[in-house]
């Protein structure tokens, strides 16, 4: 999901899907709707226009929420709003924004501006570990 990002991370996500990095060999697949998703990949800070849409997309991703949803945050925008931190229209950073919506959200950070495809794969592995840990405790 693109929450007002600059496209830098978005093209690296596509690069991760294509032959050089090929995340499908690890069972990671891009789906067309949040209702089919297990992991939500978010890029960009959250701006005023997108805030409500981001919340709705997060809520559309199927539950049980505490187990299945990972807010996988891409790039520095998600954790600190990056270069846009003091803009008038930024509601983020995304992690603070989503904790207001769901305090139990599993959040995995993938830092970088933009992130590298290898880092995205690493982020998915981290999300996987977080899910396994949660299942073990449940």
């Amino acid at each position: 999901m693109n929450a007002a990002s600059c496209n830098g991370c978005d093209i690296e996500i596509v690069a991760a899907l294509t032959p050089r990095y090929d995340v499908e060999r690890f069972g990671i697949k891009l789906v067309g709707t949040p209702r089919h998703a297990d992991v939500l990949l978010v890029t960009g800070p959250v701006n005023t226009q997108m805030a409500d849409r981001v919340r709705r997309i997060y809520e559309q991703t199927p539950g049980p929420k505490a187990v299945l949803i990972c807010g996988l945050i891409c790039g520095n925008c998600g954790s600190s709003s990056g270069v846009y931190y003091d803009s008038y229209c930024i509601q983020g950073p995304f992690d603070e924004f989503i904790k207001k919506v769901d305090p139990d959200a599993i959040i995995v950070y993938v830092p970088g501006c933009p992130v590298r495809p290898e880092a995205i794969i690493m982020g998915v592995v981290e999300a996987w570990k977080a899910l396994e840990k949660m299942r073990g405790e449940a």
Partner: protein
Amino acid sequence: MMAKAPPYPLMIGPIHPALKEPTMFKFTLEGERVIDVDLQPGFNHRGIEYLGMKRNPLQVLHLAERVCGICSGAHQFVFARVVEHAADIVSTERADYLRVLVAELERIHSHLLWAGVAGHELGFDSILYYTWKVREDVQDILELICGNRVNYSYYIFGGVRRDVTPEAVEKARKILQGYRKLEDTVLNVFLTDPTIAHRTRDVGTLTYDNAIKLCACGPLTRSAGVKKDVRFSQPHAAYGDMMGDFKAVIPSDYGYPNKGDVFSQIVVRLFEVFESVRMCDWILDNLPGGPITSEPNLSALLMAKLRMAEGEAVARVEAPRGEDIHYVRLKKGKMELDSWKVRVPTYGNIMSWLTMFKGAQIADIPIIIASIDPCIGCMDRVTIIDSETGRERDVHVDEIKSMARRAERGWK
């Protein structure tokens, strides 16, 4: 209950699988046919020009490349140039060549990226995977030269930030050689395939007259036969030196009609990829010696030159998507930019959608959207917010004009 009579409305966006970025289209349909379209942008607005006026030029250099992650180099290139014009800084000859080298490498990556996305929108995913595999090689050169794959941070006022090493040149040459070998294969895949021809010929047509009337720019306008390319019509940096060997790509020069449809755009972008490959080779062959920047001391550059500069300037650069124009005003003694305006290529191109969509089928909407290579992240920059109610509203151009006239006279 009776079904509603045509025309039917259809909303696409702001988040939709056919869109790379959040924006919203309101289509009016009659059966399968599009009869009208309206665009509601603003979902990707980040207030970049406002932020630019709170930071000093060296900081804005990094903000400028984050206007858009795909043509980040072009934005930094034009911002470096506009501040150089306003503050009377000149770049060195070697830097001019390296600047063009990175700009052309970026064009290769951007056009290949577009070709893949276009294939995906046509439902032809093998092409997406093929072109993106090919594209990774140019990303390797960019990483080798600039140190990063996407946001390069390569340009700086007075020159470039890093020099190329002989090893990097050697490796870049090898990869460019690989692209030359692939030329026939790539052109064959796109230009002779019956599926692509069926889905793109006479789809989303922009006529020569409309291209001029609607001020379209970049590969879109060249596909309609308009020779509009800032690299050659207003040569900057090293482009002036290579004028004789290269020219703007229009389809009729390569034996294809200048129709302005999606197929012509594929033709323009693919031939531009290989034109850029030859340009990069030319630059590596003719790279002059000397320093890579006219002012290596950054604090001296900032304190002595930029802070003390007074003046305004406009500069333009041919980004992969078209003409990118920046305007900057600097005030003496003021660290921050006094004013900054960015006019991105997509802003010039969106109006073309209005005519391109007329009469199109619903199934062709994704490819027509993708065909102009839109960069919403670049474009979304104007929102009017009523300070009393805090709500956004549409403002008619006459109202803005009258507000401007009143403000100029000091009225409220």
